[in-house]
Each structure stands twice: as structure tokens, then as C-alpha cells.
């Protein structure tokens, strides 16, 4: 007989170690009704893949289609701010279904093909080298602050034509946007400040690119307005979405991956034997083992039966890639960090029509970082006890990761 599953996904235990809690759900009740937050929790790999590939049954327009108040509860005085959040989030192209999603994706898709992203590899390599050069003599750094954050911010800012001196400000705004997946009752204030700050920041950039388009990514979005696919508000919201998505998840890949190597010296030794040759599959294993994004939500468009249960029309569905990526039916020894794992059909980037637009860019950045770290700081060490994570059910985000190498 199993003990009752506690239903709070925001407790410090579950935030610190999501794998035990969601792993238990996957074993005991893979299609689980979470009473506390009134949503379905999906934890098996095959269910997740099926669900993501049936976009007609599970709407991505979560904010538009969910009239219920946010969870966990927020201060009642902030319900007006939540309306602002709904309007802002609702205009993001990832919060749309076909046919609107497809039209929007076609505007941006070509910019992010594997071939186009490979062309950014030399820029990424140079940026990684400069960041490691700056840290080398100090003999220590915070991976989060000194490497994982500046690299992807640098790359996405370059793609968007954001001036050097403003990158720090963009990151400050992005940190406020991360309150979207958090549980604090007073989170609406910093979240809406971040959203309005982003709109105010990108507005003049968009105005400028409408008149003088270049080869930067804001021009791609601005062109979507000219084609009649996006309204101005959608261009602004999508610009800030991609500024955020372009770096937050990669930060987590770099930090969580580096932590996995610190915790598994045998795998670090393996990477060091052949950094250039092994970094590709090592990066895939980092994505699987401690995925940057833990979960994503959908809304059922009709009653759907799954494992003998009925996911009712308009029910909230939350699927956990961090659990699917440890599913023993798909991965041998799933709790083992094994950088030679091949094939590695993890779902860190989701699947189906909403598969992560920036997946190749994230891969390029991860591959170059892990390779460079293994080549230049072979004695990398860090205290892996007592590390803290942001209290989010969306992102698997460390607060800091101090390391030394001398």
C-alpha cells in the first residue's frame, strides 16, 4: 500500500529534488490529478510524447483559455495585475494553436534552422573564450554569474542587436519575468514590472527596425507585422519572449550540466579524454539528466482518455519533462549520468509542433561550454552540497554554482 502522495509541488523538498517526487508519480500514478492546484500531472515519456504531438487535443493558449485564477494563489489586490499578465502572455506566439501558431512560427522558423544556428558557432566559441580568459587568473568563479548568464545573454543580444551597455538591464528585466513559474503570493508585481519594462525597452528597437530592417532577429519579428501576421503588441511581446527564452533555459543547461559533471568525476574524466569528440552526446545527456525546463502546461480542448482516466475538456494539463527524461521504460539506468548514452531520446525541448525553436542554439552553446571547460579547467571542482534552486515549477534554475580549478 502506498502512502498518500502529497500534492504540493512548491515545497522546498520538491524544488530541491523534483526527481524523487515526480518519479514516484510516474511509477504509481502517471496520470495524476493534483487536487491542490486542480491540474493533471503527466510524468511518463510515452504519454508526454503522445500529448505534445496531439496539439489539437491540448491547447497551448493556456492564458486565453483558462479563466481560473492563477496557482498558487496570489494576493487578492493583485488580480488586476494578473489580467495584465494574461494579456501579455496570451499574445506570445507560443501561446497560440494552429492556424495562428503555424503562421507565426513560419515567420521566425527560418532564422533558427540548424544550418543558420551552426553559423553562430564561431561567435559562441569566441565569447566562451573571452569569458574563460577573464576568469582564468582568479582561479574561481560562480558558473551562474560569470559564465552561464553572460554567454547566452551575449548571444541573444547580438542576434537582436541590443547594444553592449544595455545587456545588463535586459538581464535584470528577464529576472523579473522568471516569476511566471513561481509560487510567491506577491509575485505579480515583479512579474508585471518585468513585462512592462521589456515592452518599454523593445518598443523603440522595433520602431527602428520597421523603418530600417537589418539581418537581426528583431527585424524578422518586425517583418511579421508588415506581413500582417503580428500586431504591434504581438511583436513587442514576442521580442521580449525570445529575449527571455534565448537565455534563461541555456543558463540552466550550463549550470545544471556543470553541476552534473562535478557530481560525477568519472564522467568528467571521460569528457576530458576527448572534449571535442564527446561534447555533443555529453550535452544531450546534460539536457536529459537535469533538464533546464521541468514542465509545461496545456488546456484540454475536449475530453481525452489516458490510462483509464478522463482528462476533461478545459482541464489544466501539466507535463513534466524532468520526469519523462528519467523514465525507465525508455532509458536504461535512468538515474545514471552517462555522457556516452546513445541514442538519447530525451524530451528536454518538448516535441511536436511546439518543439523548442531555439533547440539548436542551446545545443551549440552547451557543446562549446562543456568542451572549453574540459579543455581549459580540467581540475574543476566545487562544493555541491547546500546548493539552492529558484522556487519554480517551470524552470530548474540554480541560484549560484561556485567552482575552483587550481
Amino acid at each position, binding site marked *: 500500500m502506498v502512502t498518500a502522495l502529497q500534492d504540493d509541488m512548491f515545497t522546498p523538498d520538491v524544488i530541491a529534488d523534483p526527481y524523487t517526487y515526480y518519479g514516484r508519480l510516474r511509477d504509481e500514478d502517471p496520470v495524476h490529478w493534483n487536487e491542490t492546484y486542480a491540474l493533471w500531472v503527466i510524468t511518463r515519456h510515452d504519454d508526454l510524447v503522445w500529448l505534445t504531438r496531439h496539439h489539437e487535443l491540448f491547447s497551448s493558449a493556456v492564458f486565453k483559455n483558462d479563466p481560473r485564477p492563477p496557482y498558487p494563489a496570489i494576493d487578492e489586490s493583485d488580480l488586476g495585475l494578473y489580467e495584465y499578465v494574461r494579456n501579455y502572455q496570451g499574445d506570445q506566439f507560443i501561446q497560440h494553436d494552429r492556424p495562428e501558431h503555424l503562421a507565426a512560427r513560419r515567420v521566425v*522558423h527560418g532564422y533558427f534552422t540548424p544550418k543558420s544556428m551552426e553559423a553562430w558557432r564561431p561567435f559562441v566559441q569566441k565569447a566562451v573564450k573571452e569569458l574563460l580568459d577573464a576568469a582564468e587568473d582568479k582561479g574561481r568563479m560562480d558558473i551562474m554569474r560569470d559564465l552561464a548568464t553572460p554567454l547566452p545573454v551575449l548571444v541573444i543580444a547580438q542576434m537582436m542587436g541590443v547594444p553592449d551597455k544595455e545587456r545588463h538591464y535586459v538581464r535584470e528585466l528577464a529576472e523579473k519575468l522568471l516569476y511566471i513559474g513561481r509560487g510567491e503570493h506577491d509575485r505579480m508585481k515583479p512579474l508585471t514590472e518585468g513585462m512592462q519594462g521589456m515592452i518599454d525597452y523593445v518598443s523603440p528597437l522595433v520602431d527602428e527596425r520597421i523603418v530600417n530592417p537589418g539581418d537581426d532577429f528583431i527585424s524578422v519579428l518586425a517583418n511579421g507585422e508588415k506581413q500582417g501576421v503580428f500586431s504591434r503588441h504581438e511583436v513587442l511581446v514576442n521580442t521580449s519572449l525570445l529575449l527571455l527564452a534565448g537565455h534563461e533555459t541555456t543558463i540552466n543547461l550550463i549550470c545544471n550540466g556543470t553541476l552534473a559533471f562535478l557530481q560525477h568525476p568519472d564522467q568528467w574524466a571521460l569528457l576530458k579524454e576527448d572534449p571535442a569528440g564527446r561534447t555533443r552526446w555529453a550535452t544531450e545527456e546534460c539536457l536529459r539528466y537535469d533538464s533546464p525546463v521541468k514542465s509545461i502546461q496545456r488546456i484540454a480542448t475536449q475530453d481525452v482518455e489516458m490510462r483509464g482516466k478522463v482528462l476533461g475538456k478545459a482541464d489544466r494539463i501539466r507535463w513534466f519533462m524532468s520526469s519523462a527524461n528519467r523514465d525507465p521504460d525508455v532509458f536504461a539506468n535512468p538515474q545514471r549520468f552517462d555522457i556516452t548514452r546513445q541514442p538519447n*531520446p530525451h524530451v528536454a525541448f*518538448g516535441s511536436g509542433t511546439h*518543439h523548442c525553436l531555439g533547440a539548436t542554439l542551446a545545443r551549440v552553446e552547451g557543446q562549446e561550454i562543456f568542451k572549453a571547460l574540459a579543455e581549459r579547467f580540467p581540475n574543476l571542482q566545487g562544493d555541491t552540497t547546500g546548493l539552492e534552486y529558484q522556487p519554480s515549477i517551470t524552470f530548474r534554475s540554480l541560484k549560484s554554482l561556485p567552482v575552483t580549478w587550481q
Partner: protein
Amino acid sequence: MARKLRVWVDHQTCVGNAMCETIAPKVFRLNDNRQSEAVDPAADTVEKILEAAESCPVSAIFVEDAETGERLFP
């Protein structure tokens, strides 16, 4: 005489993003697993098929010249 192509999709890699089906719907079709199949490589131009292959976010589409075996993508 148009060039004959051999086109296939690697199902270990395909994530069912379906951009290929959008670009060349007569050539690519999603199967019951919602993964792409190259159902008729002769149904569109070489350019469209290569555009579809390039647009695959996980590079799961392979294109060869059916007669010479020359790899056209990736």
C-alpha cells in the same frame, strides 16, 4: 527529365514538428505516431524538398539523388 530523389526521415530523431509537411505537403505526411514520412519524393520540386529538409529543427530528413546516390542534404 526531373532529377529523381531518394528522401527519408530518421524516426529516431523526428519530433513531429511538421514544418516539412507544411512546406511540401505532397511529399511529407505525418503517420499515426505523428512522425513525418516521405510518402512521394516525386510530388514536388527538388528546391521545395531541400527547403523542407533544411527547415527540420532536428535535421531528421535525408535527401539523395536516387540515381547517383549523391547526398544532397544534410
